């Protein structure tokens, strides 16, 4: 997609077909079910097989030139636009292949699950979405398929509908939506500022923007969630283990790669300068790469450490996936960091994506096969099963050695390339920090070897616990799947030069980077004594870990629950946000409410005359007693005229005082009650009581609203109609 490769393109409907065939045929699954389960299985198998064949032919086409196809839907000037380069085609092919294998595996595995129809419908939808991501040419189309994949795979995660699955699914869904939104926002921002969302080098235009770092961060967060990048990985160890085994295999083996693919596109395509040789512009890409390298290192080491302590086989594998994504992220980071000189890193992460797809998908399926027949997934209750599952145990050993990076198996080849890449990055600027990164890389290798050895030995070796019984052996279809995977692992491991020349070389070549570095990549010697020594050191260190860990029973210890990024950061953050906003909103609501609700009351006060009127009236009425009191004063001057007068006066004045007090009380009560009456009347008017309680009630109450309105409206109509005649 970069530089010279864009000159000639082939227009072909293949990418469109690959993405849309599974999506459209998902609608056929319920129809096929109508004829019988058998036909549905055949349909799904045929569709995934067809997609695999199409992907193969697409790869052959892409090896000649980039392939484009266009499909206009909805938003006029933004059609679904496909453009496949070699990197996308390789991702696409490996996904289609693993998907096909998982389908074959599903045939037997799904027999003990229910709701097959739903499973297969969303299985195919997810396939279409996932492949669409690898084939699209612009961020909007990519987003479209990305969202289809996110939503459809949610149904795979919660397939069992257990409490645990629903909980994991909820987190998966929310983070999926959040990630999608981040990507969409970034896409819209890029579109707004540069006028294009195509996955082409845009650095020259982006550098002019103040929001360039924000856009990059949004994109990396959005894709990083799907890729399980620490600290955004929290959904992954929960969601992957609860899905049915084939779905877990696809989630871990393929779907998280869409995140890595997105980050790769951002870091090595969008944020690169158009003319590859302009050295000054690479500085921004380099910074981005540096950050990504460290995120990769953090991801690989933290997840590998956590994987050591897992007791559930599938959760251990999920953590291992996070850790392996760290390798890939580090590769992408190194590719961006090295910039024009980054063929080694590009080749490394591409090869690691392929390798990880094989061994991780394989291991999930194999653990699933064991679980299917023993009903046990906890490592402490498994053991000694190699006799019951001969093929599975052999292939599992191969895959385990592959992930551990034992020479002769596939993981070794990609790890060598990645190691070379990080060393190159260190040598480029002589940054001491990157030397530490390289050491952590090696340490993580040791931890990986240790946890994978523990997984293998506790499932297949050692004493068989009492009560553990395997119902039958693996059937032929599972054996075929495992053998294919084992063969692929062995093939890549034993003939790395061929893979490098035929697969990785051409992919890297399409990026048109530094020729010298490219040739250096092509001539890497995998059996270099330096690399082999390094590997031996790693294995030795892993052996020490393993022996010490098992002796002291370190691995079966539970890490404290609070010691996770989720309970330390995310949960307090979410709950405090929730608290602040809902309490704030509630406070605003109640205060404004009480103001409004009391307003009729205030209204009544003022209508009655309120306190002002009350006081005024009182003074008037009290004043009316003034002459009386003046009279009584005059009478009181008669006091001196004898005792008879005095008694008479006393009687008169006490009577007057009693009358006066009564009068004052009466007035006070009058106002109190009249206020109450008015308030009651006000509420009574608005009381929509339809029950008939006398004629008077009907006339007074507003439930009789219609009468008043009728009078009003008849008048209104009359007036309005008059206008026609005047």
């Amino acid at each position: 997609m970069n530089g010279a490769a864009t000159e000639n393109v082939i227009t072909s409907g293949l990418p469109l077909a690959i993405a849309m065939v599974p999506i459209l045929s998902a609608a056929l699954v319920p129809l096929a079910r109508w004829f019988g389960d058998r036909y549905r299985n055949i349909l799904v198998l045929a569709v995934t097989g067809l997609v695999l064949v199409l992907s193969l032919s697409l790869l052959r086409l892409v090896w000649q030139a980039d392939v484009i196809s266009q499909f206009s839907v909805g938003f006029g000037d933004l059609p679904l636009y496909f453009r496949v380069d070699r990197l996308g085609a390789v991702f696409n092919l490996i996904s289609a292949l693993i998907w096909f294998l998982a389908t074959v595996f599903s045939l037997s595995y799904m027999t003990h699950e229910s709701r097959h129809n739903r499973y297969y419908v969303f299985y195919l939808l997810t396939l279409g979405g996932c492949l669409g991501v690898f084939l699209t040419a612009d961020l909007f189309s990519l987003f479209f398929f990305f969202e289809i994949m996110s939503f459809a795979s949610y149904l795979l995660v919660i397939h069992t509908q257990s409490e645990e699955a629903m909980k994991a699914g909820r987190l998966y869904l929310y983070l999926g939506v959040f990630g999608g939104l981040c990507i969409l926002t970034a896409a819209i921002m890029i579109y707004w500022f540069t006028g294009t969302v195509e996955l082409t080098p845009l650095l020259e235009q982006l550098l002019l923007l103040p929001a360039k770092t924000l856009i990059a961060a949004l994109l990396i967060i959005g894709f990083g969630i799907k890729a399980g990048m620490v600290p955004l990985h929290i959904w992954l160890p929960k969601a992957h283990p609860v899905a049915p085994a084939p779905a877990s295999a696809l989630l871990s083996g393929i779907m998280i790669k869409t995140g890595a693919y997105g980050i790769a596109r951002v870091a090595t395509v969008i944020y690169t300068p158009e003319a590859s040789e302009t050295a000054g512009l690479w500085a921004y890409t380099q910074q981005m790469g540096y950050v990504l390298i460290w995120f990769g290192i953090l991801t690989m080491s933290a997840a590998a450490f956590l994987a050591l302590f897992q007791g559930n086989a599938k959760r251990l594998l999920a953590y291992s996936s996070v850790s392996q994504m760290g390798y890939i992220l580090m590769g992408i980071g190194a590719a961006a960091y090295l910039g024009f000189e980054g063929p080694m890193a590009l080749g490394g992460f591409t090869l690691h994506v392929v390798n990880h797809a094989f061994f991780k998908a394989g291991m999930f399926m194999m653990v699933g096969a064991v679980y299917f027949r023993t009903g046990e997934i906890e490592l402490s209750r498994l053991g000694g099963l190699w006799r019951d599952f001969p093929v599975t145990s052999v292939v599992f050993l191969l895959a385990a050695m592959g992930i551990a990076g034992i020479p002769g198996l596939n993981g070794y080849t990609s790890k060598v390339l990645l190691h070379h890449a990080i060393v190159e990055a260190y040598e480029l600027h002589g940054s001491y920090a990157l030397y530490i990164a390289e050491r952590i890389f090696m340490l993580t290798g040791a931890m990986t070897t240790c946890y994978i050895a523990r997984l293998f030995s506790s499932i297949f070796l050692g004493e068989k616990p009492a009560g553990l019984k395997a119902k039958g052996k693996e059937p032929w279809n599972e054996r075929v799947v495992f053998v294919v995977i084992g063969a692929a692992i062995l093939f890549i491991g034993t003939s790395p030069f061929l893979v490098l020349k035929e697969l990785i070389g051409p992919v890297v070549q399409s990026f048109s980077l530094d020729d010298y570095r490219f040739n250096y990549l092509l001539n890497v010697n995998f059996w270099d004594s330096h690399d082999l020594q390094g590997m031996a050191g790693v294995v030795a260190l892993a052996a020490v870990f393993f022996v010490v860990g098992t002796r002291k029973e370190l691995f079966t210890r539970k890490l404290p629950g609070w010691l996770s990024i989720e309970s330390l950061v995310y949960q307090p953050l979410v709950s405090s946000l929730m608290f602040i906003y809902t309490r704030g909103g509630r406070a605003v609501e109640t205060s404004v409410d009480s103001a409004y609700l009391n307003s009729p009351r205030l209204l009544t006060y003022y209508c009655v005359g309120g306190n002002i009127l009350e006081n005024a009236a009182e003074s008037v009425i009290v004043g009316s007693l003034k002459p009386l009191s003046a009279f009584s004063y005059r009478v009181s001057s008669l006091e001196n005229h004898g005792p008879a007068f005095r008694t008479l006066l006393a009687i008169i004045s006490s009577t007057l005082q009693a009358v006066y007090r009564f009068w004052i009380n009466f007035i006070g009560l009058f106002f109190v009650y009249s206020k109450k009456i008015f308030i009651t009347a006000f509420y009574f008017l608005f009381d929509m009581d339809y029950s008939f309680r006398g004629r008077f009630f009907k006339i007074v109450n507003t439930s009789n609203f219609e009468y008043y309105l009728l009078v009003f409206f008849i008048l209104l109509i009359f007036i309005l109609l008059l206008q026609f005649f005047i």
Partner: protein
Amino acid sequence: MSLVYPQPIIAVIVPIIGAIIIRFLDEDQARERHIVALSAIGIVFLAVASMLPAVLAERVIELRMVELFDGLGIYFKIDALGMIFGLVSSTLWVFATIYSIGYMAHEHEQRNYFVFFVLSCSAAMGVAFAGNLFTLYIFYEYLAICTYPLVVHAGTKESVKAGIKYISYSLGGGALVFLSIFMIHDLVGTLEFMPGGILGGAVEGSRTLVMIIFILLIAGFGTKAAIMPLHSWLPGAMVAPTPVSALLHAVAIVKAGVFGIARVFFSIFGRELLVDMNMIINVLAVFVCFTIIVGSFMAIKQTVLKLRLAYSTIGQLGYITLGVLLLTPTGVMGGLIHIINHAILKITLFFCAGMIITVTGKKNLNQLNGLGKQMPMTMLAFSIGALGLMGVMPIAGYTSKYFLLTGSLEAGMPVFGYVLLGSTLLNAVYYLPIIVNAFFKEGTFKKQPGPEAPLTMLVPTLTLVGFAIIFGLFANYTTIPFVEAVLKTIF
């Protein structure tokens, strides 16, 4: 006085006549009542739709009625902005009337209900087609008063309380508008809506007065638009029968509020004046952002389906106001398009909630586990509506979010974009669990023979879902050109 376009007056008077006829029918003449109600609403819809070609051809239809005194009078003027509100609400009124027939079948006082349901249509049309602020105010109050009996229809203590709240808020808001009418009339001597605004020339020397008028008008119309401190009547009014909540509290009344704000912005103040007053616009924007975020958070906390939808409405209305506030072509486009999209999607959600209440009697969210077995079509419609409001691609709703986002970038205020982003996430948090629990959790619901809900309710709902998808897929040929016609009059 010309008789060329009598449609506005038909749209206002026919529902009133219909309401009178319904009033004189007996309580048990259900058939006749339904026929009258439907035909009155149908005539309104046809009258409004028949004006569409003329409006799209950028011709302004005028109809001058009573003139009380100098500048204060009933005056109808139909332009593209009014047409959006008029067409959306009259179309949805048809659906809601059909739906009401099914929903109200077992309720009491049906006659009373239909009288006011039909009457409020006339008020809404008056709001849509008002040509000056005075007419707008008259019909705005008229709308508040004749929806009051609908809110308290249940007649329970709770509903009376909610009704008092509703009427106090509405009349309070109306009073503020009334106050500002006289201030404007005093200032410029006219109240007519003009494309460039009427206050533009009067700013010199009376800046403070214009500011006060702005605050009064926004507080007045903002009450109906449920801007945050003034929103509390909306969740309270959810005690109304569901068709009322659906039509009035998701479409007609609340949209009358945002429509009023848009009217005031573009026909009273004018864009240039508002760009000058950017300080107060920013303050208002802060309130609106607060509304969007807090409304969404409050929605998460609700346990009753209708209340959750009500708080979601508060947040979504914030989008529309925000779009109008941005004052850039794309932002306003997003806001106005969201009037259409939100109306269709939210009414669908409320219709589904109503069907659930009618068929199962369940109102709380935790009672809806496994409902997808008994009412698959309803929950499918609900899912599509909810996904549309979240902005998922092929359903309407994503268009408005897209325009709002680009509009906020265009205005150089990306922070509004992030508010939208956060609110979309919160939308997902409060909508998705409903869908997920209905379809994927085990519950006590069983598949029933026969249609899952009365057909008078199911058919309008599914038709609206169809509209939502058509407006999403073919936005380029439906909603976008319509709104662009409005933009031509503003910018």
